[in-house]
């Protein structure tokens, strides 16, 4: 039997989860305290799981590299969280949310998982409200909703522009309660650098104490990865500086399959790069596209004059502007989906029409809306976003058009997991953005928060007993075993190796170089030639890195350069897998656009006959071509359709 058994329960879609829960193994409450669970990551997924497993009575050890669980990057989510509560009485239902999510993901997600997500979404809201999450409300005191891309109903719950923050603080508070109760032990400033496999099962991790630099061993009966996404492989992204793929990558190298790595979401409305020292890109809410019009000058001379500062965008007359989205997609105009908008911006800039100094920016203009609705209305709608933009760029969007450019944002791909969120390594689970499961080839707005909390509060706590039930007689995991010894030695060796290079270039130098290459050739739009080149170039950057990187400071102290070096070393390997996956998927779907697979109107073209599968990659040794395992996707509840936004 292939290792890729999704373990999806039999029966009608609607009953699968109930069926699963009624038949899975349980652990008696008195036995739970004999069982240890390691959770790596305290974002929405990790914190929710730590809290819930702690409440259930397991001994949880939670690891994170920040100084506090509350700082995980989930904190940055702005827009909102979906749930099929149907509070607005607009015919929403579990099925509709399920349908929108599958369709939004361009039919590349597992039906049963997505249905479960929709089915449980309402409970998430209940839980969060009970925790004191201050969601926006109507005058009557009930919860308010807003609508979001990819849906015709209003089902997004939000807390001003800080939904992720409020949800994370809710999960953090529940976790704190368990810390106080002694059920969760929290390890801050600890970075997992390897997983330990004993007798084929995940039995612990190796982590570096970032303050003392000590390499430490931790044992448990099961290990859960909730380590977030790998958007930082592009160097510049909307992710936090330290978001990384190390935990996921190390488990891949120990045998967990990595699924759909090429599905990387690029967000169209980010503040563009302004200079060489740029370290990250800030997301501006997509809602701006409701009233802003996107354009670049029609004439290349105007572009040049703008870049040289000789001409102001407001001086360019209407007929000399190219509103390219409205031109190409008259029906949806500026409101086409994320991937379409992003690609169109890149196309214009690549053709030389980018409007800032770096040549990578397009205008998002509110003048027409300001004329139509007045300053006051625009201020009410977008005031805080305009302020944020002005703080960062020094420009006032009321006076001069905003400039935006797409940026790496989210990774749909991740560790392959089955219906139970278990990876191909028994006892190793992956939840939240770290796994590949629910968003297919493209994630809809407000769906990640939902998935992370769903995994953490409801799915994992219900599935993990099925595995742990066999471990009640195992006793504490011995961390003095040869397997732990070996993993620790490997980690120490890795660090020594990094220091031993003693080259001439900083870690950032390599990360930036990798990022540019990925953006160019494995970014918004991909083709066979570019991907082949990318694979070769990634290899050569990697070789360079190991010959010429310079890590200063000492291993046995707080050392930010070393932390970065460990992460970038892994990005340099993951990048190659992303390119390999992109190369092997010769169709366009969701965020993955292959130039070879497009319609006559240059739109993405899926190929369901050949590529209706999850690509799960198996590691076969350093530098070797990984093995591809395919998990066929079957659609029973949904009919497959091609997207169209003309």
């Amino acid at each position: 039997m292939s290792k890729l058994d999704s373990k999806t329960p039999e029966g009608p879609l609607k009953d699968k989860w109930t069926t699963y829960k009624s038949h899975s193994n349980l652990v008696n409450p008195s036995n739970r305290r004999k069982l240890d669970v390691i959770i790596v990551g305290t974002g929405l997924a990790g914190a929710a799981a730590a809290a819930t497993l702690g409440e259930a009575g397991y001994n949880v050890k939670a690891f994170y590299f920040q100084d506090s669980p509350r700082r995980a990057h989930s904190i940055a989510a702005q827009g909102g969280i979906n749930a099929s509560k149907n509070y607005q009485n607009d015919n929403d239902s579990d099925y509709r949310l399920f349908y929108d999510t599958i369709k939004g993901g361009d039919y590349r997600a597992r039906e049963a998982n997505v249905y479960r997500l929709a089915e449980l979404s309402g409970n998430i809201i209940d839980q969060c409200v009970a925790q004191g999450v201050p969601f926006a409300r109507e005058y009557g005191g009930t919860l308010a909703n807003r609508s979001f891309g990819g849906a015709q109903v209003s089902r997004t719950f939000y807390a001003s522009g800080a939904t992720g923050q409020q949800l994370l603080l809710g999960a953090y508070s529940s976790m704190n309660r368990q810390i106080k109760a002694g059920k969760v032990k929290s390890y801050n400033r600890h970075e997992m650098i390897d997983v330990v496999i004993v007798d084929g099962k995940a039995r612990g991790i190796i982590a570096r104490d970032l303050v003392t630099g000590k390499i430490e061993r931790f044992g448990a009966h099961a290990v859960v990865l909730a380590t977030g996404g790998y958007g930082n492989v592009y160097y510049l992204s909307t992710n936090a500086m330290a978001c990384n793929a190390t935990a996921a990558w190390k488990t891949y190298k120990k045998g967990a399959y990595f699924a759909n790595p090429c599905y990387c979401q690029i967000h169209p409305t980010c503040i563009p790069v302004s200079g060489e020292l740029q370290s990250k890109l800030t997301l501006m809410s997509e809602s701006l596209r409701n009233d802003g019009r996107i354009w670049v000058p029609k004439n290349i001379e105007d572009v040049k004059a703008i870049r040289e500062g000789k001409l102001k965008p407001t001086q360019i007359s209407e007929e000399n502007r190219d509103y390219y989205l409205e031109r190409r997609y008259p029906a949806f105009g500026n409101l086409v989906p994320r991937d379409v908008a992003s690609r169109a911006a890149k196309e214009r800039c690549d053709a030389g029409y980018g409007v800032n100094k770096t040549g990578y920016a397009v205008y998002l203009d509110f003048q027409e809306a300001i004329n139509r609705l007045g300053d006051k209305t625009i201020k009410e709608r977008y005031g805080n976003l305009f302020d944020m933009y002005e703080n960062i760029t020094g420009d006032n969007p009321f006076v001069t058009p905003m400039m935006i450019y797409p940026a790496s944002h989210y990774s749909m791909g991740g560790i392959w997991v089955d219906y139970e969120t278990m990876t191909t390594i028994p006892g190793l689970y992956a939840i939240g953005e770290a796994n590949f499961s629910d968003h297919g080839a493209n994630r809809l707005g407000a769906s990640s928060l939902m998935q992370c909390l769903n995994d953490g509060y409801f799915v994992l706590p219900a599935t993990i007993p099925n595995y742990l039930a066999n471990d009640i007689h195992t006793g504490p995991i011995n961390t003095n075993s040869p397997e732990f010894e070996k993993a620790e030695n490997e980690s120490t060796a890795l660090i020594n190796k990094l220091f031993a290079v003693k080259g001439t270039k900083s870690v950032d130098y390599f990360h930036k170089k990798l990022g540019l290459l990925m953006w160019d050739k494995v970014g918004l739009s991909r083709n066979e030639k570019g991907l082949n080149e990318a694979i070769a170039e990634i290899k050569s950057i990697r070789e360079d890195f190991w010959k010429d990187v310079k890590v200063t400071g000492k291993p046995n102290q707080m050392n930010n350069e070393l932390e970065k070096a460990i992460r970038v070393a892994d990005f340099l390997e993951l990048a190659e897998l992303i390119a390999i996956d992109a190369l092997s998927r010769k169709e366009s779907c969701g965020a993955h656009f292959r130039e070879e697979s497009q319609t006559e109107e240059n739109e993405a073209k899926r190929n369901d006959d050949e590529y209706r599968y999850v690509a799960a990659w198996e590691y076969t040794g350093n530098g070797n071509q990984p093995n591809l395992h395919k998990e066929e996707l079957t659609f029973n509840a949904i009919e497959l359709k091609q997207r169209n936004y003309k």
Partner: protein
Amino acid sequence: MDFTLKIWRQENANAQGSMNEYKVSNISSDTSFLEMLDSLNQQLVEKGEDVISFDNDCREGVCGTCSLYINGEAHGPKKLVTTCQLYMRSFTDGQTIYVEPFRANAFPVVKDLMVDRSALDRIQQAGGYTSFNTGSAPEANAMPIAKEDAAAAFDAAECIGCGACVATCKNASAMLYVSAKVSQFAYLPQGKVEASERVQNMVAQMDKEGFGNCTNTGACEVECPKGISIKNIARMNKEYFAAKTVSEK
């Protein structure tokens, strides 16, 4: 733009630290303060020296990881922003800039500009939650909450836990931070159930961690990047007084 930087360096919690002088040049005014420090660190790496450690992560003003006392103010001269949202256009060319860690007994230095703020977490652990187990929550709309109350709770809940209030307060008091949480729950019906224990436990932990007493100078609310109001402190005082006098818990 060129700058002279006077930066606190300290190898670890037990080492002696000192202010050291560095120079950076050719910095564009659109560069963020942390990116300016990044470039200084690149310079140090090229020279083979250990980089300056400073906390940061999201770089969009919401995670609360970044800190720094810049030219005599927490998060620098610009109001209502965190250090990561501070841009060099807030400074003048050729200026000397002092960069120090957030200082308080309760925030020991980890290295250089990085401090240990886990005391803030321990205060939350003492009571900053409601006791609902996952799955036991009632239907979300079963408990209507007035729009204004929800908004007021949100305003308090916006605290990012950066500790600038502590760093700024002449007494190194954590009152603004603690009161933000207490207040958030005080506005919501869910929070009422455990209100009395919560405020007592959180204040007890706050005192245990060695933060100072508030003398109402109001500096914290001015420097707080999220504009959390000292109204919350008043609210907490009241909650505490009620808990200690009226409540039987």
